[in-house]
């Protein structure tokens, strides 16, 4: 008998893809930097007392009045860009993860229950979700963000609303397959409560496709958050996320002060591409059709 755990086998296979391995390293590195931002960044960009307007819009490598080098330059408020990016990543990842987790829980529950209950309930839930999926997520998020106003939780609400449908659709598909398996019938003949059948039996068996969607959707919600912030519908100006940093620097692009927009943009792209590369490999490994 094969004694290795499924997780160990999964990791053995994952390791064989160099690109995914490097991407995973990048994601972990960026996450670690973001978590450690308050410790490692030279400046607290949210503390207005720390900002020196004299140092605003300085190019990379400039040694500021506080005596440390601004390796990536400063923005229009005199923030050290490296610090702002680290803090921005922290917020972006945080919001991406929270929104992703809530959308996962909500969508998966809804989709699995729809598949389990069947009949009219299923038809109603799935039609609503189909309808929602026919709009671009950005449009929905824009409208909601505009309605709910600025702040972390309104933003998360907008992101969740825009994204839960993807989880619901995936969970519904997987749960419909699981629903027809004998172990569900066994639970029904015991009988167990519907909630236990769904949460303890059906949903855990739907995890592989949901995890694939989750990796992609976390990247998407980070991008979406950046987009909303870029358009001024995201977080307040005092807590700049990556999107807002890009937006703030945008007006200086043509005056040669490229760094204010470019560096936060690069950080965002590297993060999103890395998450997607990891997600691709996870998807390839979990998709039985691609298995030889």
């Amino acid at each position: 008998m094969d004694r290795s755990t499924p997780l160990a086998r999964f990791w053995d296979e994952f390791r064989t893809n160099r690109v995914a391995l490097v991407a995973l390293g990048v994601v972990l590195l960026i996450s670690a930097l973001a978590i450690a931002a308050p410790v490692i960044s030279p400046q607290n960009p949210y503390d207005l007392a720390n900002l020196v307007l004299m140092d605003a819009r300085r190019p990379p490598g400039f040694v500021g009045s506080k005596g440390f080098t601004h390796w990536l330059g400063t923005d229009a408020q005199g923030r050290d860009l490296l610090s702002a990016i680290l803090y921005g990543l922290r917020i972006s990842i945080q919001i991406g993860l929270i929104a992703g987790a809530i959308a996962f829980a909500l969508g998966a529950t809804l989709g699995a229950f729809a598949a389990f209950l069947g009949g009219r309930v299923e038809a109603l839930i799935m039609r609503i979700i189909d309808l929602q999926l026919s709009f671009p997520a950005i449009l929905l998020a824009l409208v909601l963000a505009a309605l709910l106003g600025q702040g972390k939780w309104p933003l998360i609400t907008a992101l969740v609303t825009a994204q839960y449908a993807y989880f619901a659709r995936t969970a519904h598909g997987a749960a419909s397959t699981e629903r027809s398996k004998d172990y569900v019938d066994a639970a029904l003949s015991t009988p167990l409560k519907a909630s236990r059948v769904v949460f303890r039996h059906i949903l855990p068996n739907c995890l592989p496709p949901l995890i694939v969607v989750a990796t992609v959707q976390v990247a998407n919600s980070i991008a979406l958050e950046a987009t909303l912030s870029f358009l001024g519908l995201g977080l307040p100006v005092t807590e700049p996320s990556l999107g807002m940093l890009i937006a703030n620097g945008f007006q200086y692009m043509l005056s040669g002060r490229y760094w204010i927009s470019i560096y936060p943009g690069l950080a965002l792209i590297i993060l999103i591409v890395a998450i997607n590369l990891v997600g691709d490999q996870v998807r390839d490994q979990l998709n039985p059709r691609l298995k030889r």
Partner: protein
Amino acid sequence: MSETRALVEIDSVSKRFTPSVSLGERVAAWLGSPIDTRTVHAVDAVSFDIRNGEVLGLVGESGCGKSTLGRVIAGIHPPSNGSAMIDGLAVMGSGSKPLKTTTRIQMVFQDPFASLDPRVRIGETISEGPLAHHLVSKVDARAYVTRWLLAVGLPAEAADRFPHQFSGGQRQRVAIARALAMQPDVLVCDEPVASLDVSIQAQIINLFLKLRRELGLTMLFISHDLGVVRHISDRVAIMYLGRIVELGPTPAIFANPRHPYTRALLDSVPKLVTGSDELVTFKPIQGELPSPLSPPSGCHFHLRCPFVQARCSTEPPQLDGRHHAVSCHFPLSDGE
């Protein structure tokens, strides 16, 4: 056989499956495209009793509705018509979305690879039902699981493992332990040995015999394997295209089948005879199994029956007879 009271009563149970028509198909139908809305009568007004303490074998070929009937009795599917009752109480509650209300009937499935949740440890698989129905407290759950594992011939350590760490025969033992842990009066077994190897089949059949002796279980034993059913059952019901065609004591069914289908079915199984020159005897039934979508009129078997007469194609026969019931206009007599 002594007449004991009926524990399970199946009262003209029917189960129909109508394909659900989606909005798109409705539009297609409106535009003139043909769509399939034919109803499958998987189980067609079936009535019989299972007596307290007996093993009733239910035999039939694939598509005859025996599995569907088993699932209706076990409370997984609600019947379209009629009711399954245990001790006079319906297995399923009423309402538009009926739910199973009793724990006194439990089920063992054919494929132990599909009937155990691959992500749940054996111990939890066995204890979750009893915990949910307060048959055991959380504190005693571990000992309770051990008791049932030992009863089905598995070591107590099995509780901490996952299904994939076991062979087919061992998994079927787990599935049996799960059903027994609910302390049922009736066990519905749907082809419980069909997916097992020959040498393992004997072990599981012996386990059923032992459990029956020790726990006094009443069983509905569904199988296509006549040898297994003959060995384990007190009475046998033969099912053909959704209807019971013959029901009687096992020795009578096998020695003197009265329905032409039962006779043909018994003849068509290759039988090993040792100590003779003709090693194996069997005789095929003519024709194909008709589609349950469009069963023949009258007696469903009349197209394949060697004794068919005019009346058989128009008038469906009724299951008739007290001890040895047969649903045939012209039943075979003894020794024919």
